[in-house]
């Protein structure tokens, strides 16, 4: 979706004092008034789009969260208003609490791991030349694959019997027996986190690489003249200079993790015994498998609030970034 940015070119004209001092004030004011309505007209499609396709479903979901609806009640319009009952039930539901916890673990671990791997790979590839450009392109492949494909590849790699991961673990004598990666309640969450980290690394590499390119080379040269070692250069130049990039990656990563569904659904469906259940999969199961629409909507709304907190922080952060820049 293209971002409609009308503010930048129009702004000078909105300030009549600065716009054209030579023009008479009256016509300038008329022009401004005309521009306002023109601006509103231009915004209309975008506003309608947002209201219809984001506002309406969001409001409907919030409303549904206060109702008892299951599928049959939904069809016959016999759902009953239950106030906050769905939410009360939610926070007494051990499955929901554990899904919330899993989501948080998921968010923290993937974001940190993706950033560290991203930084490492981006630093290694931060060189000119065709070979490096080629490797950078190849790195994007995991990101370009449809998730259903990469998810299934991971299922095969992690399979107990014929998975390549178990094959190497046993051949290299790292374990004596096959590990049930996706079927063990102690491991399934970590197996999915691993797969998701792998999926997110290319994106991190690309963003961090762009950030690294933007750091002036003279900073490093000056530091080297002053006798700074590699570690000092990393902690005193690279990381501080990547601050904005890091912020964006962390916040986007957290938002993506909160709404996470696809990887978990493809790989474990939240099982075994809810061991890898996250908010997204739990919401899907309660809504579309147990047909508890009201209860499912309540989970969705909790996710919405969590994502919005992340979103607000993100917007604040980027705004500050722009101002600073």
């Amino acid at each position, binding site marked *: 979706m293209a971002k409609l940015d009308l503010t930048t070119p129009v702004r000078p004209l909105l300030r009549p004092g600065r716009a054209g001092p030579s023009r008479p004030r009256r016509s300038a004011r008329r022009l401004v008034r005309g521009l306002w309505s023109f601006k509103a007209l231009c915004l209309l499609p975008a506003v309608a789009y947002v209201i219809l396709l984001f506002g309406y479903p969001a409001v409907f979901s919030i409303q549904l969260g206060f109702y008892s609806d299951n599928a049959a009640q939904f069809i016959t319009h016999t759902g009953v208003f239950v106030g906050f009952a769905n939410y009360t039930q939610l926070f007494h539901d051990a499955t929901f609490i554990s899904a919330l916890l899993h989501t948080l673990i998921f968010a923290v671990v993937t974001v940190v791991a993706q950033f560290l791997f991203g930084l490492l790979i981006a630093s290694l590839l931060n060189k000119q030349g065709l070979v490096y450009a080629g490797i950078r392109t190849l790195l994007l492949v995991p990101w370009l694959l449809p998730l259903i494909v990469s998810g299934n590849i991971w299922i095969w790699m992690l399979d107990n019997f014929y998975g390549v991961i178990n094959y190497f673990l046993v051949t290299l004598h790292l374990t004596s027996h096959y590990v049930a990666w996706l079927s063990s309640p102690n491991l399934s969450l970590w197996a999915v986190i691993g797969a998701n980290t792998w999926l997110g690394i290319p994106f991190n590499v690309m963003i961090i690489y762009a950030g690294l390119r933007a750091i002036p080379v003279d900073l490093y040269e000056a530091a080297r003249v002053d006798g700074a070692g590699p570690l000092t250069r990393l902690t005193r130049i690279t990381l501080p200079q990547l601050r904005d990039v890091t912020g964006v990656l962390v916040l986007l990563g957290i938002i993506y993790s909160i709404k996470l569904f696809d990887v978990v659904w493809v790989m474990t*469906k939240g099982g075994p015994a809810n061991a890898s259940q996250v908010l997204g999969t739990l919401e899907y199961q309660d809504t579309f498998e147990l047909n508890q629409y009201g209860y499912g909507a309540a989970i969705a709304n909790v996710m919405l609030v969590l994502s919005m907190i992340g979103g607000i922080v993100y917007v604040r952060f980027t705004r500050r970034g722009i101002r600073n820049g």
Partner: protein
Amino acid sequence: MRMHSPGPRRTIGLTLAGVTVSLLAAGCVGAGGGGGSTASSGSSSSKITPAVPKSGQITLTEYDYYTTPGGITAMQDVIKAFEAKYPNVTIKRQEVPYPSVDKLVTLEEAGNTPNIVIEDQDYLDQYYPGLVPLTTFFSNSFINQFLPGGTQSVMLNGNKYGLQIFGGNDTALIYNKTDFAAAGIKAPPKTWDELLADAKKLTVPAKNRYGFEIAGSQAENSTWQLEPFVWSSGGDLSKPTTAAWNQSMSLWNEMVKKGYMPSAVTGWDQTAEENHFEDNNVAMEINGPWNVPLLQSSKLNWGVAPIPVQQSGQTLQVPVGGEGWTIGKSTKTKEAASAAFLQFAAQDRSLNLKAVNSVGYLPSIKSEISGYSARYPAYSVFADEFQHGRARVYGNNYGQVSAAIQLMIGNVLSGKASVSQGLSTLSTTVSHIKK
């Protein structure tokens, strides 16, 4: 009474400008919801005869998920034959890949219920409001041509909604004859003791080969596979603390603990389970008749036996799976014509038998099932068991009970809970679910 009355809709105006403030207000708009008429019992005296109008063109919509090549052909053949008999009727088929119930619920909510609905009976409690009870059109003698297990599976609130016209399915013990010969086992196990002993003999740790497997992933498949064990030893869904439950789960648990069954089954659905059987990782599995074509095209030397019972003499009770053919609410003419289509599809026996076989199911019509084993020997065990098939029903809330059972199975088999802990938690959960 049967006409779909729209009832007060929960309208959210398009005036969403002041989003946050209006949210709660919007929530209150729909509070007076109670209008829509739910399905009324059709068992009253006035029956409507299933019939196609004598004159005038009529178009019926039909909704199903028979998306396999065999299923598509079977459905198309029936529709073609019906249209040939009644040229003034056109049936518009809509095949929706499984799982298709969400789309059906959406269609019903919008007042666009298809005239003929063929949907997974497991979700009847979700989509029944758009349906007309069968007794509106059919006499009990017509309905009783079908096996009770199938008809009861498509029943809710005392109303019969559907018939398994293309048949249904169940589960049995599928075993590898080569492995049996190698382990010196002459006949498939009949009791749990034999099952356990055979599983032990068939387990070869050095070759990473296991004796037995089930589909234990957190989905309906795990409940569906546990049910024959629980039911055949006298257990019931409403009381999960009984001996039947404890013994069934102890059997499965022992299989894992002793290493006869891979602990990984907690992540396997029935497809993954079948793959491991066909790859010769496991020598015995519980699975359904839809695997017969796959097994026939594999290189395995395989056999099918009834699922072992706890003690010899007990009657095996397997759950019935499949989908009901149901009639969607519309005009009286269209409903009667839809009923005529159901009647036609069931009464043309040769067409019906061919359809059942090409879908890979077992016939639900009593007169067809008795001769089915002789006609299609590969399905004989499944067909014999199917005659005593039992419906998976728990009021309107089977889905919730099953979800709790699935969780219990996962917890026990993965060692997170003991059998008694798992069952006591399950019992607490089930006691809160309305039957």
